[in-house]
C-alpha cells in the first residue's frame, strides 16, 4: 500500500487520461452508428448484410488495427489518434446494431400519428424518431461505454498512457499493488461512466420507464411550465 500512497498523483493523472481516451470513441461511435443504424432499419434488404459486416469489425484484433491504421490514415503508430480511431471502430461495430434496433423499437402507431400531423421527414427524425429511440440507444451506449473503458488499456502496447500503464509497469517491476490498482481504477472508471449515462438518460428522457419515479415527483408542476421546456 505504500506504493499507492506514494503514487496517488500518478494514478489520478492516468485515470483522467483514461477517461478522456474513452469518451472520444464513445461519442464518435454513437454519432457514426446513428445514421448507419437508421439506414439498416429503413432498408430491410441492407439490414442483414450491413449489420454482419459492421459486426465483423469487432473481431479484428486490436494489435492488427494499431498496425494497419497508421499507414492508411497517415498518423504515427504511437499517436493517441491511432488508439482513438481503433476504439471508435469497435464502438461503431457494437453500436450500429443497437441503433438499428432502437429505431425499430419506435411504435409505428406513434410514427403514423406524427406523419398525420404534418411532420416532414427531417423534423420527424429529430422530434419523434430519435427521442423515442433514446431508451434503446442508451442501453447500447452503456455496453459500448464499459467495453471502451476496458479496451483503452491495450493502448499501452503502442505506448499510449492510460490505466493500462499500471499493468505493464507493475508487471515489469513486480509490484502487485500497482497491477491491482490498475484493475480497480479501470472498473471504477467504467462504473462511474455507466452511472453518468444512467443519470443523463433520466434527465433527457423523463418520460421513459427509467425516469418514471422522477416524473411522479414532478406532477405538480404548473401547467404553464410544461410548454416552456
Amino acid at each position, binding site marked *: 500500500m505504500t506504493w499507492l500512497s506514494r503514487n496517488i498523483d500518478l494514478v489520478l493523472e492516468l485515470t483522467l487520461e483514461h477517461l478522456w481516451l474513452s469518451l472520444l470513441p464513445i461519442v464518435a461511435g454513437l454519432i457514426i452508428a446513428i445514421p448507419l443504424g437508421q439506414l439498416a432499419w429503413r432498408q430491410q434488404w441492407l439490414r442483414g448484410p450491413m449489420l454482419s459486416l459492421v459486426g465483423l469489425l469487432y473481431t479484428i484484433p486490436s494489435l492488427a488495427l494499431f498496425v494497419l491504421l497508421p499507414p492508411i490514415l497517415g498518423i504515427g503508430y504511437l499517436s493517441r489518434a491511432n488508439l482513438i480511431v481503433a476504439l471508435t471502430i469497435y464502438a461503431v461495430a457494437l453500436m450500429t446494431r443497437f441503433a438499428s434496433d432502437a429505431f425499430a423499437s419506435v411504435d409505428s402507431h*406513434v410514427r403514423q*400519428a406524427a*406523419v*398525420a400531423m404534418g*411532420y416532414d421527414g427531417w423534423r420527424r427524425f429529430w422530434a419523434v424518431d430519435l427521442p423515442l429511440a433514446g431508451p434503446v440507444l442508451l442501453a447500447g451506449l452503456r455496453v459500448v461505454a464499459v467495453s471502451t473503458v476496458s479496451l483503452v488499456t491495450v493502448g499501452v502496447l503502442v505506448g499510449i498512457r492510460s490505466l493500462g500503464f499500471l499493468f505493464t509497469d507493475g508487471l515489469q517491476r513486480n509490484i502487485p499493488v500497482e497491477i491491482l490498482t490498475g484493475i480497480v481504477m479501470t472498473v471504477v472508471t467504467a462504473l462511474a461512466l455507466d452511472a453518468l449515462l444512467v443519470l443523463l438518460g433520466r434527465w433527457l428522457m423523463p418520460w421513459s420507464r427509467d425516469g418514471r419515479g422522477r416524473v411522479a415527483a414532478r*406532477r405538480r408542476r404548473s401547467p404553464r411550465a410544461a410548454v416552456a*421546456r
Partner: protein
Amino acid sequence: MIEFEGVAKRFDDGTLAVRGVDLVIPSHQVTVFVGSSGSGKTTLLRMINRMVEPTSGVVSIDGEDVAALDPVALRRRIGYVMQSAGLLPHRRVLENIVTVPRLNGMGRSEATELGLTLMDTVGLDRDLAGRYPNQLSGGQQQRVGVARGLAVDPNILLMDEPFGAVDPIVRADLQTELLRLQGELGKTVVFVTHDIEEAFLLGDQVVILADGGVIAQRGAPADILAAPASEFVADFIGADRGRRALRVEHRGGVAVVVDSNGRPAGVLTEDAAPS
C-alpha cells in the same frame, strides 16, 4: 365538401383495398365509414390527408384535387384523431395538444393559452397539462387526442376508430362528448368504426363498406334501417337478427318496446325524449 370520384387503391402486395368509390361527404356533418376489417374504411379516410395515395381516381376538398396540394401543408390543416390516441409519449399533455400549431410556428405563450383552452373544450382538467401520456387513463388520452385534432381549428376532422381501445362506459362518455362538441363546432367529421351502433349514433351520413372497399349502402341511419339495400347490409346492421325489429307491448298502461326476442328495449313516450 369532400368528394371521391372513381377512387381505387391497390397496395404494393396486390390487395385491392378500395375499388371504384364515388362519394360526397357534405360539410359540417358527421360521415361515418363503417365496415369490418378489410373493408378499406381506414384506407379511404387516409386518402383525404394523403397518407395513402389512390391508385386511380380523384379525391378533392371543396373542388380542389388533394393530389395537387403539398401533403405536409394539407395534413397540418386537417385534424386527425387515431386509435389509442397516438400521442407522442415523450411530450407532455399540453405539448401534445399544441403540436401542430407549434409546427406552424405559433409562439410558446400563445400555444400554452390555446392548449389550456382546448383542455377545457374537451373536458380535461388543466392540472393534467404537465403529465406524460402514459400517466393518463385511456379515456383521458383519447380526449387529449381529440384536443390535438382540434388545435388548428380545422374545417375537417378525421377520426380513425378513435374510441376503439377504451372500455364501453368510457366510450359512451366520449361519444356523447363528441356529439356535444360537434353541436358547438360544426366540423366536417369523417369517422371510421367497425361498430354499427357507434355509426348510427354519431353519423348524419353512414357509409357501409363491404369487403374489398365497395360501398354497400350510404344514407341517413333511419333510411338505412328502413330499407337495407341488400342482404349484406341487413345482416351487417342486425336487421335479420331481430334486434332492429321492435314492437310495442302494453304493461299496465305503459307502452314497452321489445325486440323480436321479447327483450325490452325501452318505453314509448308521447313526446320525443329531450336529448
